[in-house]
């Protein structure tokens, strides 16, 4: 597959990372609770990215709503898009209702399984459940098959097969990067799954640690190895207004402000205009 696996590039800022993400990329993004790289999201909007295809692992929120509202997105694959406690994602909702973007509806473990297939280099993964949902008919990349080891379970054992998913780019924020190009994601292991499955992976971080975190037995289990990391850039409070566990919480007031403003196209534009360009 010819994937890069040698050196992590240290970029100057989030802007430089946004410049590495081509228009039309399939962009693997985490949920709002799992450190979206908000600084890069805003940089993508400033560089007027176009035709991005977003993959929610397994759901999306503010990051997707901003990119959709700014006209950067052609397609969304996700199990859901919402602002959680702050309600519906207004730009997503309008874009789907007006058919401005294509939506590939999914269900959480199908997305995890599709990425896990790519992690393992196999073409698909089987998944229980899902059969009986209208989602199956919508997805040409999902198939219902007979369990080849079915005798154990009886005569018929249909099971869903989910095609491998390989994002062009994984993008998220992390607490630390180190001089060796590793990043620390802690318990947010879906970030590792996205990174493992993607062709390239860009990460913003709060602080740079000296040395190599893989040399520290306590930190190592939360480390994503530099083998998966194409480039990093420092972005202090880079997940804001979302959270970095143990460092800063969700800015609930800002989330409510966004949810209110983005109800209209004009309100959304007004919200964006408050950000320095």
């Amino acid at each position, binding site marked *: 597959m010819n994937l890069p696996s040698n050196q992590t590039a240290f970029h100057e800022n989030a802007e430089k990372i946004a410049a590495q993400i081509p228009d039309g990329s399939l962009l693997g993004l985490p*949920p709002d609770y799992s450190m979206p790289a908000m600084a890069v999201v805003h940089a993508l909007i400033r560089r007027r990215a176009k035709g991005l295809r977003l993959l929610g692992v397994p759901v999306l929120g503010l990051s997707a709503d901003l990119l959709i509202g700014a006209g950067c997105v052609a397609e969304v694959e996700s199990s859901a898009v919402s602002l959680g406690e702050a309600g519906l994602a207004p730009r997503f909702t309008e874009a789907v209702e007006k058919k401005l973007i294509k939506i590939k509806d999914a269900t959480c*473990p199908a997305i995890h399984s599709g990425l896990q297939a790519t992690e393992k280099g196999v073409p698909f993964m089987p998944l229980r*459940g899902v059969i009986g949902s*209208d*989602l199956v008919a919508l997805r040409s990349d999902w198939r219902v098959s007979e369990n080849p080891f079915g005798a154990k379970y009886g005569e018929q054992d249909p099971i869903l097969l989910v095609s491998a998913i390989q994002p062009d780019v994984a993008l998220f924020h992390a607490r630390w990067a180190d001089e060796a190009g590793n990043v620390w994601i802690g318990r947010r292991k879906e970030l590792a799954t996205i990174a493992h499955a993607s062709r390239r992976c860009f990460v913003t971080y709060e602080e740079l640690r000296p040395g190599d975190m893989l040399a520290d037995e306590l930190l190592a289990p939360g480390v994503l190895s530099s083998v998966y990391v194409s480039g990093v850039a420092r972005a202090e409070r880079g997940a804001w207004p979302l959270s970095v566990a143990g460092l800063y919480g969700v800015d609930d007031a800002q989330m409510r402000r966004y949810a209110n403003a983005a109800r209209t196209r004009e309100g959304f534009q007004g919200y964006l205009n408050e950000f320095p360009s």
Partner: protein
Amino acid sequence: MSSRVAGPYCAEELLACAIARLATDAGHIAVGAASPIPATAAYLLKAKNPRLRVSLLHKREANPFSEGSRELFDLAGQGRIDVFFLGGAQIDGEANINLVQAEGKRFPGSFGSAFMYPVIPRTILFREEHSRRVLVPKVEFISARGNPVALLTGKALFSWQKDRRRFRLESVHPGQTESGIRALTGFDYDVAPGCAETQAPSTDELDLIRTRVKPEIAANYPEFAARIWP
């Protein structure tokens, strides 16, 4: 709408107790996002039975998961979770749920429901709104289908008859009538011979909720807790 009903308890406490009665034998209850009433029910059961495991998906402190968001689904796929809760923008008479789209409106999406509903042994359908808009003859989109334990709304409790694939009205909440429920329900259903009023919370249950359960809920659903227990 006021959350208060007749008597010294509020509607949310009644619903939490009704949910708890549907899950008394559970060993592991998982609660998804934005579900303060099911969470109240789960912690009420835990107050009575410390051996019960409660996994609150979005617990702010000491979250029970360390393998990322796929861990909940992996646990469910293995049969390590007994009880889970699902709702729907629409729920139909065959217990299908729709979280995607209805009447030209787009909703967030199916989340993990398509997997969880058929995989979890005891799914409880819960939706506070009880109206013909929500409880429809046929959902516009089947996000998930399965065999629930029951459907609890803000006005009534239905059991699910797996063999007949039909709901059965088991009880109506205080202030509701059988004919009123019929008028507010868009799908057809059976009525249990002994259909009566939903059992009110006991003084013991209310005491546990307001002493032992409240701090857990307030830590994760502060706005809900402030509204219910001012």
